[in-house]
């Protein structure tokens, strides 16, 4: 069972729905405030963090970066720019646990991350 928290700032319900649809019963998803979600990763109560905001790194990852440190966080999409599937998979292989993106790109990037961490 992979435990996922949705932190970040905006469109949390929609992001959680997308994650649930892909993960089915192999995962649990919890929606939290960004601080609580980052703490859940730090205290090992959750495995992965997803968050969205309009820049892909501000509200989405600010608390995660502050509490977990940059080496565990990756911005996978930003306004006007989505990172390639290969780059995103590379970030997960490097051990990143927290992912930030813009809500506009949620449908594109979440499946890439989910398929990798489920495999």
């Amino acid at each position, binding site marked *: 069972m992979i435990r996922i928290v949705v932190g970040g*700032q*905006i*469109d949390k319900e929609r992001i959680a729905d997308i994650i649930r649809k892909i993960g089915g019963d192999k995962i649990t998803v919890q929606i939290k*405030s*960004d*601080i*609580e979600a980052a*703490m859940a990763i730090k205290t090992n109560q959750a495995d992965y963090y997803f968050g969205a*905001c*309009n*820049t*892909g*790194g*501000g*509200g*989405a*990852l*600010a*608390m995660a*970066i*502050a*509490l977990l*440190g*940059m080496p565990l966080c990756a*911005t996978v999409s*930003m*306004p*006007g*720019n*989505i990172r390639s599937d290969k780059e995103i998979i590379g970030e997960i292989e490097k051990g990143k646990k927290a992912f*930030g993106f*813009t*809500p*506009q*790109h949620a449908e594109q990037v979440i499946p890439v991350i989910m398929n990798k961490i489920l495999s």
Partner: protein
Amino acid sequence: MKYIIMALIGALASILANKGVAVFNDGLRPIIPEYLEGRMNKKALAATSFALGFGLVIGFGIPVSIAASIILIHSVLLGTDIIGTWCPEGKKGIVISGAIGALYGAGLVAGLKFIVDAFKLLPVNFLPQLGQVGTPIVAAFAVFPALVVGYQYGVKNGIITLIISFLVRQFVQYYGHFVIGTAKVALNPEGMALLTGMIIMIIYAVREKPDKDSQTVDLVSLFSDRVGRIKKNIPYLAVMGGLVAAATSMSIVAGDPISLNLLAKGKNVEAALTALARGIGFVPLVATTAIATGVYGPVGMTFVFVVGILIKSPIIAFIVGAITISLEVLLLSALAKFLDKFPGMKKCGDNIRTAMSKVLEIALLVGGMMAANAMAPGGLGLFVVIGLYVLNKTSKKPIVDMAVGPVGAIFVGILINVLYVLGLYLPGK
């Protein structure tokens, strides 16, 4: 005067970004301490700031600014973030980033004027029609509090809020004229609807009690040295906030696309109310990211724009703006405690920002279509804007949804000129 004040804003904002005191882009702020504390090099920081900011300047800030002829602050401050992080460190960095920043600020004013003048010289002048991009916003900005309530407490409560706002709007439209003594007072229907919606939204939000089981993190004590760092920089931030308030009072810049379009149409009270609502929406984000990173924003929680819109004298706006941003910083710790007590307000802030971008996205898209249709009647304009919108969705490097309307309208304007030269388009009589 316009050039001087914009040059000053550009210079100071670039220096603040260079020193890591304040950056505008919320996405850049968490990365600054990584650099300051030596976990990230200058090159990676510069590359990140460019990647985060450039698309928004070109794809969002500039098109929205052209459509209304007021500069959207994003165009200025996302640019100075990039300038500041690209310039070298140390004393040399202060001089270089200041100089480039000043050129950039003044250059934006000149560039915007040049573009607008150049459009006027085209065989088919489409500037009057381009103003229509802002029309739906001016009519519909008051709906967003209902959307905030809808996000937070379900669609039913959202509808109740919308209906009450609507009733207030209609009532004020027909009965909102008073004579007090000799003065005639006419209340504005949209403004009052917005105010009503905001009050309902806040009532819902403060009723939410904190969850006793949830683990709370005392941010202020966890990051006390970072809070201290911001407080040390108050003098610089005060000047920055003052300058932005002064520029806003002179209608050179605006803080967000909604109040920008309202200002362009002379609706100052509504613009101030919208800017205030947006400020409330940014309090949780700016407060928590600032405390956790030790880096502030050059416009802080954006309340300096409210000051600028309401105070017509640039000098007084400067003073009040400087005081406002200083108070924000001094109250940071208190605000963080307040937000812990009222979790509904924190969520409300997040939802205000989601709701405003949703309302903007649809309003600017429809506005872009209206403008394009006015420029090129008979379907050509609509064909192009809708085509751009759906194709953008499939792009790997899409421009932000909000900007498709304005960009599309400008594109149609240029297109009809090209077609006119080729003899494929005749302007309507």
